[in-house]
């Protein structure tokens, strides 16, 4: 059961941050789409709805996505459809349903570092950064490794890249959580990255496998390296061994789609 004792929608991010750190059980409200999954008591629910963080800005060297932008807005954005094969649009398009995606906000999913997130592996292979109110701009890769600390995610910054990227996932039914998901990027400059998520822990870059992909090693070697270097776990969706087996399949599917 969820209890929110008080609600506020501040007009400035400074006010929102001050309220957030004032008390331990004050919390930022995201899209609230997952709010009923858990059970918690929130002293003050802080809604970022008035902070004008709903945008997808196409700038010269990067794309900026505001924290309160909905997953549906990402899915239908023309800017993102034309960026790296529309990987970001594709990655969110199977999350529950349109109704859900009209509510779920990108900032909440990224800040919460959800293991099942379909967006995180894609953002990782694209070298995304997060812009936090207190800490400033840091690499998403580093942010995901850090311990939880109260802050407000303002936007996600994605460098404009010249290359191809693909997203793949394995789920039992359309709209269900991924049992395993992943993203692969190959740039025209020869750089390459592979990230695997829903293991069931949060997405991570497979460093050795990425290097092997860059060096154009055989697919079998890339698959082997990724399965060895990443940790897999068991939950209700699948066992550790099953996920490890799926990882090799996922990498094959991504490599077939992305080409050389």
């Amino acid at each position, binding site marked *: 059961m969820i209890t929110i004792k008080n609600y506020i929608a501040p007009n400035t991010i400074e006010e929102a941050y001050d309220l957030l750190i004032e008390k331990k059980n004050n919390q930022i409200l995201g899209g609230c*789409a997952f709010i*009923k999954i858990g059970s918690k008591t929130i002293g003050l629910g802080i809604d970022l709805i008035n902070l004008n963080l709903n945008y997808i800005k196409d700038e010269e060297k990067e794309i900026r996505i505001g924290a309160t932008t909905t997953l549906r807005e990402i899915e239908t954005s023309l800017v993102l459809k034309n960026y790296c094969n529309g990987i970001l649009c594709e990655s969110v398009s199977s999350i529950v*349903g349109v109704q859900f995606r009209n509510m779920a906000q990108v900032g909440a999913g990224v800040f919460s570092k959800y293991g099942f997130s379909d967006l995180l592996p894609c953002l990782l292979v694209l070298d995304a950064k997060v812009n936090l109110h207190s800490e400033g701009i840091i690499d998403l890769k580093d942010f995901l490794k850090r311990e939880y600390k109260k802050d407000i995610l303002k936007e996600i910054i994605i460098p404009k890249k010249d290359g191809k990227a693909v997203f793949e996932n394995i789920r039992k039914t359309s709209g269900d959580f991924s049992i395993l998901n992943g993203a692969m990027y190959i740039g025209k400059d020869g750089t390459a990255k592979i990230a695997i998520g829903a293991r069931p822990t949060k997405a991570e870059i497979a460093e050795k496998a990425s290097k092997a992909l860059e060096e154009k090693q055989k697919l079998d070697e890339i698959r082997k390296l990724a399965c060895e270097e990443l940790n897999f776990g068991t939950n209700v969706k699948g066992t550790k061994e099953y996920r490890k087996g799926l990882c090799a399949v996922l990498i094959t599917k991504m490599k077939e789609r992305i080409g050389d």
Partner: protein
Amino acid sequence: MKLNINNKLIDVDVRPDEFLLETLRKLGYLSVKEGCQSSSCGVCGVLLDEKIILSCTYLTLRAEGRKITTLEGVRERSQYLVDFLAEEGADQCGYCAPGLIMAVMSLENEIDNPTEEEIYHYLDGNLCRCTGYKGQIRAIKKYLDLKSTRSEVI
């Protein structure tokens, strides 16, 4: 607070943790059904500023200043779709129908002449335990075809 529901401004007292589904039902908008209560099934769908959302997990306080539309507010517009759903045997227990109809209204607002694939994709979040979806898709296609040929009646 004041809520704009079906183009009427209504005064209502709500708790900070009250969700739109509860508010709408206590105000008498009984077309809005309670299902999974966890953003999964689509039966509680209403339009917020013409887009479909799930009222079971949408905080009521967040809806202030926005336009809420329930099935009661699109009765006339949706009548053809209701008739086609009946004609195609796509409505058995009927529990999911309000959410489905609201999702079709949202689809209409968002996509002109959707393909069958786009219809399926758009309605992915609407679960129905009775019909197997085929009848619903036939009804929706008939409704959208009618709309494109006789725009003056809908």
